[in-house]
């Protein structure tokens, strides 16, 4: 077991959660971001389900990258999708059996996110950057927390926004995108964390 570099792990977590937020700077996972950000409570549950699936994904991707894909690199995409989707399905069945309460909280979201772009993106980024097992899990946690943060912020703003009187043309998707743009602008501020540290 190689020495774990805590500093590096903290950086990976911070980078994945706020500096390079998956939704707001990579545009990954936009469908749930726009679809289920109407209520804070739903957003939190969706976010938790996402963190969970991301960690499962990270472990699957690490396993595939280490043991299977060196022999057949061209199967990367197909292998990722099939293995991630089926593992999530298995875990979902296990949760249903072991903890019905947890299943009720997260259950309906799991099939929706098994292979959305944030999940596959996580697996691909992890591969491209050559993260090991521990780094991968930290990266997944960071990305999941970042996604949850973006979802909850968005839901909070949209709840407030329902009472505002908007021009007819801006109602719905257009306003959501403008809000997302401003949120994304805010998150760009976090990039200063890195330049000032370096």
């Amino acid at each position: 077991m190689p020495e774990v570099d805590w500093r590096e792990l903290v950086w990976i977590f911070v980078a994945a959660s706020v500096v390079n937020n998956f939704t707001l700077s990579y545009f990954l996972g936009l469908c749930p971001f726009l679809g289920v950000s109407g209520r804070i409570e739903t957003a939190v549950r969706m976010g938790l389900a996402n963190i969970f699936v991301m960690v499962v994904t990270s472990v699957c991707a690490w396993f595939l990258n280490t043991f299977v894909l060196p022999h057949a690199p061209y199967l990367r995409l197909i292998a990722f999708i099939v293995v991630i989707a089926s593992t999530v399905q298995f875990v979902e069945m296990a949760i249903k059996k072991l903890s019905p309460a947890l299943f009720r909280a997260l259950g309906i979201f799991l099939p929706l996110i098994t292979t959305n772009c944030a999940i596959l993106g996580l697996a691909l980024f992890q591969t491209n950057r050559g993260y090991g097992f521990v780094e991968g899990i930290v990266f997944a946690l960071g990305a999941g927390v970042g996604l949850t943060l973006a979802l909850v912020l968005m839901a909070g703003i949209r709840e407030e926004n329902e009472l505002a009187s908007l021009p007819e043309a801006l109602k719905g998707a257009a306003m959501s995108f403008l809000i997302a743009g401003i949120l994304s602008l805010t998150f760009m501020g976090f990039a200063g964390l890195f330049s000032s540290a370096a």
Partner: protein
Amino acid sequence: MRTQAETYDELVKGLWRDNPVFVQLLGLCPALAVTNSAINGLAMGAATTFVLVGSSLLVSSLRNIIPKQVRITSFIIVIATFVTVADLSLQALAPAVHKELGAFVALIVVNCLILGRQEAFASRNTVRASLADAGGMSLGFSLALLSLGAIREILGSGSLFGVDLFGPLFEPWVIMILPPGGFITLGLMLAVFAHLRARRERAHKEAGDELDERWVA
């Protein structure tokens, strides 16, 4: 059997009436992530076109063989195969573009537009109609990406397709080629389209009910 006119209709509906990005809000991740310049938008549109047309062709010809229960999985494997082909060919033929688009070529697999067309159209229509549908949808998608990319490039770098437009006096709005610019551009475009649609509908209503009755009859 479909008539010529119906096939034509499948082709053009994707361009405007059911435009995947502006009307259906599908495939948004690539639509925003790679449109920081017109050429990137076009490259992404071309790659998506290849995958969508190829998958629709294969899925519609195999639609009677694929069992209902495993159809989604089969669609995904077909799509993933085409994406792998596109990814590897782009890497070999145009490494610069491939580097620019990064992981987003591989992420075409999870573009909801593609799976959506397979499930909603290609799996229950003839090869010809499916090709028309896929062609129209991908044209509409490419057009949307190109226009987003062009607007963001003109404002964000003062150029179009890398050609300088305004000379040295123009101060580029750098924010437009950064992530927030993507969200804001798409938000404003949606607002403009919604406004135009509302105005057209109002104009139709004011133009008189006589006309409408005649159309209905």
